[in-house]
């Protein structure tokens, strides 16, 4: 029997959390992010007000998703574009594959999109004999390594430049003369230019779908997004339905807040609005424009009033960056498209609570994520709700359920609680006296394996209160 997602997570977490080289690479990456993020936030006059504004915009959009999505669709169709509503990943992939095969597409260039990762679009196209190029530098690197992105904003943050130079030497069959980042970028750029000029289809995601003007908004830093969406004959946008926002002017706050939270930039180098294919009299742009609106479990989340706001997420990555769990286990350990706090909240909804409930438990509930979320999603409290949903669905272990039932009985009977505590201390003291702390027989083993044994007071506070303190 193959390992479950939870078992794989535990194994990988044990390896990664003890890997000090990995920890150091992530620490350095995150420290430069922290500094940039702090500086970026200071540039915005009232950061809290900006967060509240973004939250309001997204709440309005999500609460009226039906209306805004249809408005968006009508505008796109009016300019000759096509809109496809995909209930799940399979429908979305089939649609894109059909468009590609119908139009004789042999090469696709992609700009960064987490939704295409979520629905596994790349492998579907490759199976149909279509060559797919990831053109974001980080995505290009992880594609060469045959790996999923490590992080939703910085896909190859787990690699240093020596590893990247080595990878290029091996995979690109080119002389690699140095591991200077600018040089490595030039090598990738040269390779990607060939792809840009030969591709018949460009695939992008969307950071926002602007309802009132029927345009998609993309924030990028490398310019690859513009090439993907303007050079090939066909442009296909694959995106989640939750990316909708009501008005064009909402970008005035969302763009800078996304950039600040994502990388600490005031605004990304390229902020692009695309309304469709080339119009009569225009000099460039694709001939065909398709938007694939992916549901894939999102409307299930929409139906849950308690957690609906999870759909506010603008995928900035700030919660990953601040998360101490992410910093110690890294992105790949999660084994999901979306890692970190947002992934731990979202994945049980998209992929099933039975298989992914462990992610909701893999958090110390420290709340750092919630404190930085630019759209104010109550992330760590949603983890608590996921845990409650897992137990109500009977998805937790029988032994745990019985243990908490016994615990509950003791907690409403003070004498039993006091006797239980006394017995536990007596038994453990006797065991530890025999040198059994941390051994297989030690019920505190998970704790004592990494720590000096818990102190076992000879008397409880309540006993001392009765003896020495109560009379005062």
């Amino acid at each position, binding site marked *: 029997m193959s390992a479950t997602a939870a078992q794989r997570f535990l194994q990988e977490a044990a390896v990664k*959390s003890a890997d000090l080289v990995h920890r150091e690479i992530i620490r350095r990456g995150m420290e430069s992010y922290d500094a940039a993020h702090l500086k970026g936030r200071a540039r915005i006059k009232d950061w809290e007000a900006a967060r509240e504004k973004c939250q309001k915009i997204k709440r309005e959009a999500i609460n009226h998703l039906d209306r805004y999505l249809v408005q968006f669709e009508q505008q796109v169709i009016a300019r000759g574009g096509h809109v496809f509503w995909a209930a799940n990943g399979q429908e979305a992939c089939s649609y894109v594959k059909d468009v590609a095969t119908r139009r004789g597409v042999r090469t696709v260039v992609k700009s960064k999109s987490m939704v295409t990762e979520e629905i596994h679009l790349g492998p579907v196209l490759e199976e149909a004999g279509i060559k797919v190029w990831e053109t974001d530098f980080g995505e290009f690197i992880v594609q060469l390594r045959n790996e999923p992105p490590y992080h939703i904003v910085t896909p190859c943050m787990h690699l240093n430049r020596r590893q990247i130079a080595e990878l290029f030497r091996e995979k690109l069959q080119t002389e690699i003369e140095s591991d200077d980042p600018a040089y490595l970028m030039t090598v990738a750029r040269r390779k990607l230019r060939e792809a840009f000029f030969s591709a018949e289809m460009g695939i992008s995601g969307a950071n926002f779908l602007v309802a009132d003007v029927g345009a998609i908004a993309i924030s990028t830093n490398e310019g690859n997004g513009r090439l993907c969406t303007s050079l090939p004959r066909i442009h296909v946008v694959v995106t989640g339905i939750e990316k909708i926002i009501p008005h064009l002017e909402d970008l005035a706050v969302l763009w800078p807040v996304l950039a600040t939270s994502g990388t600490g930039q005031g605004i990304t180098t390229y902020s692009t609005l695309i309304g469709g294919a080339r119009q009569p009299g225009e000099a460039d742009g694709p001939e065909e424009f398709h938007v694939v609106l992916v549901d894939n479990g999102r409307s299930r989340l929409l139906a849950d009033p308690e957690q609906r706001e999870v759909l506010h997420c603008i995928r900035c990555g700030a919660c990953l960056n601040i998360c101490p769990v992410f910093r110690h286990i890294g992105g790949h350990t999660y084994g999901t498209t979306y890692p970190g706090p947002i992934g731990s909240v979202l994945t049980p909804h998209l992929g099933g609570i039975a298989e992914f409930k462990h992610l909701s438990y893999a958090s110390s509930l420290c709340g750092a994520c919630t404190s930085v979320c630019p759209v104010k999603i109550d992330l760590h409290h949603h983890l608590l709700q996921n*845990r409650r949903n*897992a*137990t109500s669905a009977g998805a937790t272990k029988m032994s745990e359920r019985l243990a908490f039932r016994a615990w509950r009985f003791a907690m409403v009977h*003070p004498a039993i609680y006091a006797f239980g505590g006394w017995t536990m201390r007596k038994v453990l003291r006797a065991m530890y006296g025999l040198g059994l702390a941390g051994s297989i027989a030690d019920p505190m083993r998970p704790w*004592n394996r990494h720590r000096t*044994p818990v102190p076992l007071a000879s008397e409880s*506070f309540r006993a001392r209160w009765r003896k020495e303190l109560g009379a005062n």
Partner: protein
Amino acid sequence: MQRKVSLFVPCFVDQLLPEVAVDTVKVLRRLGYAVDFPEAQTCCGQPAFNTGYWNDARPCAEHFVRVFKDAETVVCPSGSCVTMVRKFYADLLASSPLRSDASALCARTFELSEFLVKVAGITDARASFPHTVTYHASCHGTRELDIRDEPLQLLRKVEGLKLLAMQRFDECCGFGGTFAAKFADISAAMGGSKAESISATGAEFVTAIDPSCLLHLQGILGKRQARARAIHLASILAQERT
């Protein structure tokens, strides 16, 4: 008439770290409070609640409300346990007959440093502790209860105490309740990073308002044979100035 407070002692403090509660009593009495310990108290329900067993946590929370519902003011030497009462009882007991008692109780339940500084207006606890100390801002105290400066105000007034700043002082120590057992390796790695931050200050002690973080950190620091020891804020404040 002497002002009265009722002591809420977290279950694991009662059983494993009684000294923290004894020191809390000493501090409160020295500052002129009559302290009462309702002996029927057990646990606030957080272990079950945080693990998802809300149906098991609920009777425990109801028991807590019954025990404390006539108390004027409840004081507890743990930010995390106060968080359970103040932030989560409303949801947990939303359809309980004790709902209104619970919400009234939330408003009268305080963490020790918060009680001293915000309610009693005391920053000088008349303590003396001639040592170097660094402060760990625990998650629940900081981000759930917004207790940020109160413990530091109290520490700054302790005679002889030298406060040393810690890098990433408000990053989680990795305890997280059942998280420490379910994900022992991750918890220990996070504790290890925290221990490095503590050691880098060179302080003799690390203090906090949460005994659970300190229990975890003491275990980690001990295993690494680090110089610093964990000590609860109450145990520093209990050292009376002569």
